[in-house]
Structures are given as C-alpha cells and as structure tokens.
C-alpha cells in the first residue's frame, strides 16, 4: 500500500508537464507565404502599434506584422536575442543593451523616433490650481517629501473638509511610473501610500472622481472631469501646458520620445514598414491614438 502511494501521485503531474511542453512547441509553428515582421515591446506603444499593424495590412497585404507588448525592456531583450525584427521602446536603449546586441548578433541596433508622448499632471476639474513645478511634484510624490495637504500649496478647496492630497500613481512595473520617477522626482523613490493603479485610464478616472486627487498619465487620456496642469522645470521658469507644439520644441518638461529599434539599418519589408510608419498615414494613427506625431520637418525624406 505504501509503495503505491509513494509512486503514483506523481503521474498526473508528469502528464501536466508533458502537455505544457507540447503546447509551447505548438506556438512556434511557422506561417508560410507571407512575410512576417515580429514586433514587440513598450506597453505604452502597444495600442498604436496594433493599429499600425492593422492598417498596414491594407497598404501591404503580403506583409503580416505580429505585435505584442510586455514592456520596453522586454522588447529590447528580444531584439538582443534576435527574436524580433522591430522593438518598441518608450525609453532610449541603454549603452549596455546596444553593446550586448552587437555582441550577440553582430549588428548595431538602430533607433527611429516614431512619435512623442507627454505625461500630463492631472487634478480634479474644480481644483483652482492650474500650474505646478517639478520641485512641487517631487515634494508631493517623493519619499521624504513634505507636502501632504493642498493648503500647503496655497490651494483652498471649497468642497471638502479634509484637504489631504490623494496621490494617484502607477504600479511599479509601468514604464510611465519609471519615467515619472526619473524626470519628475529625479530618481528618488515614491512615498508609499499612493494609490497605485494598473492603467493610464484608471488614473484619470480616479482623479476625475476625487476633488483632492493628483495624478499623472498620458495627455491623450484627458476627460472633461479633470484638468491638466501647466508644468515648469523650476520656480521662475515658464509654465508650459502639455500640447503638441510644446512637445515638439521640448519646452514641456515631462515629454518623452517613442522609439522603434531594428538590428542594423532596416532592409526590405521592415524598411518599407518603418517608412510607412513615418509617412502621413502612419503619423495620423499616432495622433489619433492620443500621442504626438513627429513634425514633418523631422521625418526622413522618402
């Protein structure tokens, strides 16, 4: 009896492992005839990348673009391994990553700016404040920051009795979280106790329903219930509202470029795809998705 007990319970587990392995193999099946471009990376860009892929199918029916997210780091890691043709990244490639890619594949990664994103700072629409400096943001959000109430910023909120600032943030794996930490907080850590939400849209929704809230999210997510603050780099400098022109001339402090990376200069189908992304049709999609397109002067001439 004991021997049976000792050996048999493993069997269902073995079966499970075997099924898992089979399933993994199945996903590798190749698709014939069509040219396939593998595209992976930034979660910020995954929506716009999907629309690109869908629209490009109409422009070039013989090319299939397969898009997946995972984060900028994931996309670049796949590029280093040579597993994808195009990596999306909402940050610059790190020198160490470029070096690794060159060592692994023998080709230098080449980057293209395909659009811009401005991170807007949102407050409730009834909040009288209309501008903020990066230093004030840091005092509100960063560890050891001193500001916890709106009255400390000189703001009188009429409708509420308790004017404690409700800080709305993103989960720690988000690229937006990292960008805000780097550019608004100077890489200081966030103070704990912020509401860490799982999406850009959720941030704007919570801010819109909370009179004492402040939050950050892409400028494309604005709704009538919230107000975007003008942001200045430092006290005394001009406050700039997040808008297309301010992103283009780089006067808005919380703007970032959206990149795609390829291994070596793009060739053939990949080159045609990237050219199309930077054409008017591709850039229209960037704009429609709530991001800022590359100004025509900066686009490469066909």
């Amino acid at each position: 009896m004991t021997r049976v007990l000792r050996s048999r319970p493993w069997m269902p587990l073995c079966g499970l492992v075997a099924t898992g392995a089979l399933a993994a193999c199945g996903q590798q099946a190749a698709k014939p005839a069509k040219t396939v471009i593998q595209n992976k990376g930034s979660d910020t860009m995954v929506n716009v990348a999907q629309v690109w892929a869908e629209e490009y199918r109409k422009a070039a029916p013989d090319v299939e673009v397969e898009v997946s997210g995972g984060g900028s780091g994931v996309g670049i890691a796949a590029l280093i391994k040579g597993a994808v043709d195009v990596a999306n990244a909402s940050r610059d490639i790190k020198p160490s990553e470029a070096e690794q890619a060159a060592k692994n594949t023998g080709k230098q990664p080449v980057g293209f700016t395909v659009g811009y994103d401005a991170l807007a700072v949102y407050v409730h629409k009834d909040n009288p404040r209309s501008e903020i400096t990066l230093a004030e943001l840091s005092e509100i959000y960063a560890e050891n920051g001193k500001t916890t109430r709106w009255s400390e910023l000189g703001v009188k909120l009429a409708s509420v009795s308790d004017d404690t600032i409700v800080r709305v943030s993103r989960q720690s794996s988000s690229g937006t979280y990292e960008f805000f930490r780097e550019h608004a907080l100077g890489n200081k850590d966030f103070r704990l106790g912020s509401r860490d939400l799982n999406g850009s849209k959720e941030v704007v929704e919570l801010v819109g329903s909370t009179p004492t809230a402040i939050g950050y999210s892409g400028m494309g997510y604005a709704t009538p219930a919230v107000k975007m603050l003008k942001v200045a780099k430092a006290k005394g400098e001009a406050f700039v509202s997040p808008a297309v022109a301010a992103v283009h001339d780089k006067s808005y402090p919380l703007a970032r470029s959206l990149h795609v990376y390829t291994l070596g200069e793009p060739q053939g189908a990949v080159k045609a795809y990237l050219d199309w992304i930077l054409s008017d049709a591709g850039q229209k999609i960037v704009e429609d998705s709530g991001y800022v397109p590359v100004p025509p002067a900066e686009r490469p001439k066909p």
Partner: protein
Amino acid sequence: MSHDAPPDTQLAARPQRPAWAVLGERALEALIRLSGMSAIFFVAAIFFFVLREAAPILVRDEFSLVQFLFSTEWYPTSASNVRYGTFALTVGTLSVTALAMLLAVPFGLGAAVYLSEFCAPRVRETLKITIELLSAIPSVVWGFVGLTVMSRLIVTTTGAPVGVNVLNGGIILALMSVPVIVSIGEDALKAVPDSYREAGLALGATRWQLVYRVLLPAARNGLLAAVLLGVGRAVGETMAVLMATGHAVHIPGSLLDSVRTLTANIAAELGEAPAGSDHYRVLFLTGTLLFLITFAVNLTADFVVRGIRRR
C-alpha cells in the same frame, strides 16, 4: 485469498464472497485512500515548489528576513535603494480580513441559525438556493461591484476622498464569505441530534434558550469550522480585494484608508517581475508567508477544537 481467521466467530461464519467482488472492493478502497492521501501530497508539493522559487533569496547577503517581515517599505523596483518590506501588506491583509469577519460572522451564523431552526421549509429552500447563488458569483464580479457601486456609495455616505479602501474591501469580502459560513454552519446545526431539541423543549426552554444554551454549544466545532473556512476565503481572496482596496502600501489609520493585501500585491507584480530576479523570488517568499498565515490559522483552529472536545 487466504484468510487469517478473525477471532470473532460471527465474521468467520459469514458466507464466502466471489473473488472478483473482494478484489474489486480492495481496489476501490485503495483508490479512495489514494485520493485522500493525495491532498497531503499536493499541499506538500505546492509548498515545496513555492519555497523552491523563493529559497535563493534567503541566502543572499543583501536580503534581511527581519526587514522582509517587519519593514513597511516596499520598493521592489527602486532605482537607488531596493527594499522588500511586507509588513504593511500583512497588516493590509489582516485588517481587511478582520473587518470582513466582524461583519460576516454574526450575519452568517445568524442566517445559519434561522435557516436551521426558525425557518419554514419552503422559505428555507428559496433562501438556500439564493445563498448558493451568492457563493457562485465570480470574485472579479465582486471586485467590479466594489470598484463601482460600493465605492460611490462609500464616498457619498462617509465623505471619504476615495471609495476604494479597507471598508470597501471588508464589505465585499464579508459578502463573499457569508455564503460559506451559512452553508457549513447550517449543516453543523442540522447535525445536532433532534433528541437534544426535544429534551430542551421538554424542560420548558424557549426556542431562543434552546438555540443559545443547547444547539450553539453542541454544534460549536462545526460552527468554528464554518467561520474558519470564511477566514480562509477572505485571506486568500485576490481579485476582489485588488479592485476594491485601492492598492496603496501603507498601514491604515482608519477604515477609510486604502491598503494593499499580500495577495493583491503578488497578483499585480508577479507578471512583470523578470523570472529568477530578486523581485520575483521575494514575491514567491510573500506567497510562502501567506501560506504560513493560513496554515497557522487552521492549526490554531484545530487546537481550539481539540481543546473544546477534551472538555
């Protein structure tokens, strides 16, 4: 099939059954025993695999178990100073669970007593079906209710700045654990022999005295088991609390503060933590911690039940 002759003569005198019937019975018995034992095996295996993923972090020099258990600073992806303190998360889990039990236990046990002792048979059937329906609602739906309906209700009634908080999570978890407590609790009360009831009534007890003095003490083991299953449901629940508690890492000062629970933290961060990284291992260690908490709850309950039995 050779027999060791049993001492009992009555058994020995029993007519022989055909060999296939005996063999079949043996085989079935073995199968059933195997199913029973497999529970132990699976619990041990799950614990082993979770611990195996977590173990390498325990021997790292930078990692401190004291900090992991008792620091409130949870900075898994910090650029300058990575800290893994889960105390705030543990407090989050305990506070939401405690509130849920505070609401669910009186309601659940009350409903169980009503169903088993005071209710007309037809009403009981309707109620039981409804309660079973309540327990069949998926947790993500509960989370959605917390995020939208309950959150708005809390903001308008209490004036809290944000509706997703301990109160919201506690109410949602209470609603989720009440059906468990009611079904198990009712079974426990039903299991009390009718002779107890008859004896009580014969001695002139009112129905309330009967419940309070006779049935509750007689069924306390089963009722405790019902409450503990409710606690287990509340501690382990992930999706609903992820959506309803506001996901803020700090020790709550009031019912209207947002918190984050151990389960919600794992659910939110495991997908993005690179496999094999420190962050990944610490999340598995959090899983182990959760496992130990539920294990401790169950073990304590077991001891309590044994203590009651001995008296």
